[in-house]
């Protein structure tokens, strides 16, 4: 239903949508006014050029004298220079409006994305979102600054030209003006067709991208099935459709500009005929005739372009729509006004009012389901984790192990029941209060561009160098720094790409330890890392967890067995809970998982 609406909106201009940009344009108000003034002045000057032609022909060419040529040249030159300066101002102002608006839009988008639900990132890939940030936002503001700037300028130049022509000779002027609606009419006849054809091209384009994606990602499967030939044939069918659709767009697009130019020529022909008679009757001079020819040829293209702008604007509407959708993204978790009053918000925390976080976590009769899902994942779920205790969550990949962690971290809130932190509903205190007491280590450790030191310091921004290094030593991350040429000042690259997964993991441990959090969340890695790093990480886990409440999504036997409580998750639900001993005796799912892990360990153990 919603999709349908979005689709149909591309056919018409939606002023409502464009209005959404106003608040972001507003700070550039002065620039916009300046732009208008510049456009009008510039149009005035440039529209007068044919008058100079007229003057030159009438006064020099016709009269056969070069007297007064110098002042004429100087005035003309002055006009040209003035126009050029205005032109330069136009560029600079358009750029300022463009980039200023884009900056404000991006900032707002960024803020929105800091507070959307974490599942938002499961539904939208980072690549997609980055596309919204950079290219879509750029396109939208580009329209406003450049396209509209140009449109305003063209509009004025057409208006001024028409007025001058009518004043010079209304008969000839009318011939030219009569041509304008023809050009506009042709454009509006063809453009909707082009737009529809373009939509088909876009659809095919995404199908083709999808095919490349499947072909390249599944190349091994295609080879094992000997289906390369078949897929290539199918792909050829798709590109064949694409060829026909874009050929249609190309053919339609070939009409307007040549048509406009020819219509302009027609007008000149008609005008000449009329002019011949007028000149004969001494009602018209050569100079005016020359000026008219110049005027007519000069305004036809701009008129065709004005009509183009309309379609361009429609084309950009899709980008705007995606941008607005992001701006409309509501934060999933919000603090109540009372909480914000006392504890502050994300950007202005009132740390002085914060209670100390001890780390008692209790799930009290929690009912929970993911948004847009009907199935409850937790039904009347209770779990008490006193401070300093550890909980292991085990299950197959994709079984939904992170749900409990998501609730404990308040990335989600229960539908019914409550998650109690230190005995109080976590909603009674601010998100930042809880998050400031969390240490979080991900299976796929996320680092930021910058040095090793900067990455560790992310855990506590005011930590001294000595504290950073102490934290690193505690979890053996100092070995990583030692291994690198520049020690702690080594650049880790984009997302930490210069380091191995194991090294990244050790640094993210150090980062969490530096924060000294009462609650620790650990998503343990399954990826194969060399045994040396593996041993270091096991040590790191032991040191990092001691004395803290911890939730561990666990894959390693040694980690699981040392936890105080084990939860077994299957298909999103907690199906078994207890200590290692209890669960082994139960011979259920845990036992199966445990055996599988033991087998893997047995097979990789050396005799």
């Amino acid at each position, binding site marked *: 239903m919603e999709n349908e609406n979005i689709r149909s909106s591309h056919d018409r201009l939606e002023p409502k949508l464009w209005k959404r940009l106003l608040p972001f344009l507003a700070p550039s108000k002065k620039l916009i006014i300046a732009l208008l003034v510049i456009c009008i002045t510039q149009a005035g000057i440039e529209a007068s050029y044919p008058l100079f032609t007229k003057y030159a022909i009438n006064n020099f060419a016709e009269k*056969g004298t070069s007297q007064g040529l110098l002042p004429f040249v100087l005035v003309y030159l002055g006009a040209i220079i003035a126009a*050029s300066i205005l032109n330069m101002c136009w560029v*600079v102002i358009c750029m300022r409006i463009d980039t200023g608006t884009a900056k404000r839009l991006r*900032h707002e988008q960024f803020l929105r*994305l800091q507070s959307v639900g974490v599942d938002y990132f499961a539904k939208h890939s980072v690549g997609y979102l980055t596309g919204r940030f950079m290219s879509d936002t750029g396109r939208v503001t580009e329209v406003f600054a450049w396209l509209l700037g140009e449109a305003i300028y063209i509009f004025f130049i057409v208006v001024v030209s028409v007025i001058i022509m009518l004043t010079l000779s209304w008969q000839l002027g009318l011939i030219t003006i009569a041509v304008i609606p023809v050009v506009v009419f042709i454009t509006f006849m063809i453009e909707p067709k082009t737009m529809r054809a373009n939509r088909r091209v876009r659809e095919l384009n995404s199908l083709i991208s999808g095919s490349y994606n499947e*072909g390249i990602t599944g190349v091994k499967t295609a080879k094992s099935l000997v289906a390369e030939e078949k897929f290539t044939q199918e792909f050829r069918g798709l590109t064949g459709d694409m060829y026909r659709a874009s050929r249609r767009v*190309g053919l339609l697009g070939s009409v307007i500009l040549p*048509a406009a130019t020819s219509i302009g020529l027609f007008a000149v022909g008609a005008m000449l005929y009329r002019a011949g008679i007028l000149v004969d009757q001494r009602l018209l001079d050569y100079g005016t005739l020359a000026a008219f020819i110049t005027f007519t040829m000069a305004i036809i293209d701009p008129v065709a372009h004005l009509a183009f702008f309309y379609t361009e604007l429609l084309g950009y509407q899709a980008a705007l729509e995606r941008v607005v959708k992001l701006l409309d993204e509501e934060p999933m978790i919000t603090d109540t006004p009372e909480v914000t009053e006392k504890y502050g918000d994300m950007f202005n*925390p009132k740390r002085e009012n914060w209670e100390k976080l001890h780390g008692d976590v209790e799930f009290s009769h929690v009912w929970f389901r993911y948004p847009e899902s009907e199935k409850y994942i937790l039904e009347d779920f209770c779990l008490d984790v006193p401070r300093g205790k550890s909980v292991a969550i085990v299950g197959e990949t994709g079984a939904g192990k992170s749900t409990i962690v998501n609730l404990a971290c308040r990335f989600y809130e229960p539908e019914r029941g409550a998650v109690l932190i230190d005995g109080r509903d976590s909603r009674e205190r601010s998100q930042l209060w809880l998050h400031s007491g*969390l240490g979080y280590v991900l299976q796929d450790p996320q680092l930021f561009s910058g040095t090793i030191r900067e990455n560790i310091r992310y855990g506590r921004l005011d930590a001294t160098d000595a504290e950073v290094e102490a934290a690193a030593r505690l979890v053996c991350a100092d070995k990583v720094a030692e291994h690198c040429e520049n020690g702690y000042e080594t650049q880790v690259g984009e997302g930490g790409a210069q380091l191995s997964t194991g090294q990244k993991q050790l640094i993210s441990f150090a980062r969490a330890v530096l924060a000294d959090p009462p609650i620790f969340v650990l998503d343990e890695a399954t990826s194969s890392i060399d045994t040396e790093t593996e041993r270091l990480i096991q040590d790191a886990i032991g040191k990092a967890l001691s004395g803290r409440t911890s939730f561990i999504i666990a894959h390693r036997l040694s980690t699981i067995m040392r936890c105080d409580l084990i939860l077994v998750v299957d298909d999103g639900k907690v199906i078994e809970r207890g200590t290692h001993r209890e669960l082994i005796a139960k011979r259920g799912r845990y036992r199966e998982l445990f055996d599988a892990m033991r087998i893997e360990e047995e097979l990789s153990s050396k005799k």
Partner: protein
Amino acid sequence: MKNKDTTKTEKQEFNTLKSKGALLLRLYRGAKLLFGASVILNALQIAATFLAPLLVGYTADFVIGNSVDGAPSGIAVTVIDAARRFISAPELLICSIAIGVFALLAFLFGFAYRAVLAVASERFVKNLRDGLYEHSMRLPVSWHNRYLTGDLIQRCTTDVNTMREFARTQLIILIRVIITIVIAIVIVFGINTRLALVVSCSIPIVAVYSYVIGKVISKYFQANEEVEGELTTDIQENLTANRVVRAFGREEYETEKFGKLNEKYTQQWIKSSYIMGLFWSVADLMSYVTLLAVLSVGSVFVARGEMSFGELLVFLSCTQQVSWPVRQLGRTLSDMTKASVALGRLNEIYSGKPETTTENGKTPDMTGDIVFHNVRFSYPAPVKVTAEGEEVTEQPQVNTEPVDVLCGLDLTIAGGSTLGVLGATGSGKSTLTYLLTRMWELPEDCGEISVSGVDTREIPLHYLRENIGLVLQETFLYSKTVAENIAITSSCAPDLDIVREKAAIASVDGDILGFEKGYDTIIGERGVTLSGGQKQRVAIARTLLKNAPIMVFDDSMSAVDTDTDRNIRQGIRAATKKATVIIISHRISTLMAADKIAVMEDGRITEFGTHSELLALGGHYRRVYDIQSAYDEEGGESAFLEDK
């Protein structure tokens, strides 16, 4: 030494240039004539637009003005004379009609050249896309492994679009600009040499100016792109690590960091707007000054009677018509460097060496005997190619020496028998299947793998793979209907009876019927997600449809429960009585019924025999068996509890 290096790079550059050129020619296959036609039509259209001012000038001079000075333009006279032969009317009317006819011609040529060009360039793009797809299908897995999937897909989409722009606009603008300048120069020199010199002087000046400034601007743009890269990276890192940001409560810090970069990016663009503004306005200034010069000098000439009024009009309109394309020239040239980069990146895919197909090899009767003899194999060092086409080792700070995955492996599988394989992650089990199907080629001196007595390297690739039904460890299904997925190897439309028969053997028929749209369910569409086990079973059914005499299941029932696992195995056995079957699994219950079982460890087979033989051996197999059968024995668990 240094000298030698430069010659080498120069030669390399020349070679890339040559292969890029060859690629371009290849891509214009079937469109060369069209492209040529559009160039000719283009010239005609430009000629028509130029002739019109000549006619206008003639009309003004000799029809309206009754001028007697100067010679009328030869072309205009010819045209009007020709027109006079067809229509008898006052000369003024004939002239107007002639202008109208030229307007029509200009339209027809203008439309025709654009239309023909559109067809030619869309054909070019189709060739490019088809070629990329086909070639990437033919490239070996080892080639694909060196590239990031996302990077390859981006090349096939973004770079293709850049090339499309090149074919559709840039190339033709270049041609058009040249034709326009040539025609304009011919016309103006025909009228008045001295004034023509004024016009033609300005052409190289403006062209060189726009080229040079174009280079300067592209440097600014490069700097902008760098800052854009920083900003993009920052956004990507923030979004990727959104949980980290939240868990550490770093939203404020992140927003501040982003704000700084955002501001830097904005300022960077504003900085470059000065040079852009300067460029445009100075270019405008230049062309208007040229116009002014023509107008003033021309007026003086007319005043002195050296030139007619009509000729001055022609001069003015020629000057105007030339000024825009000349400015365009500089910009197009700098745009074309982008296309050149894109073409280079695409050429890299095109120049990848396809798999050796061994087209005329031996096609032995597939009895299904398989022999691995002293097979040694290691994957090449993990070299990745960056988006810029540079090769980098993936983890520069980690040891990247290739490790032998298989070290002298010997294994004989009798035709029609079943082999079970047990082994830890990384022990080389999957490598075995890749080498058997030649997904990775076994180098000449690294032992031999033979099927039905013939070295696999001598068997035609398609024949080999058609006869081996391999179910890969990672299941990959296509976004088609379930039926189409199962029947993906058949060339004609899927026969539902056969599809269902195979699905039934793979124990997935019931699951599929349970979907709302049954076999017409499109996989991956909104709301429909198959569970891991269902996907694996669909993949099994798909492979069964191949009816291959050799079947390989690479851990392909891991997400299926033990009972279903047994049903599937029994079904497969019953359906393919004579087939050789290789099953890789962690489940003893899956392996124990096999004729022979191999236990792999570090690229070697360390235990080999029947179930009972291996139990008696008391090695890894025995201990794994003990762990799994401990379910049914009392008291077994206490041992594990004290284990750690």
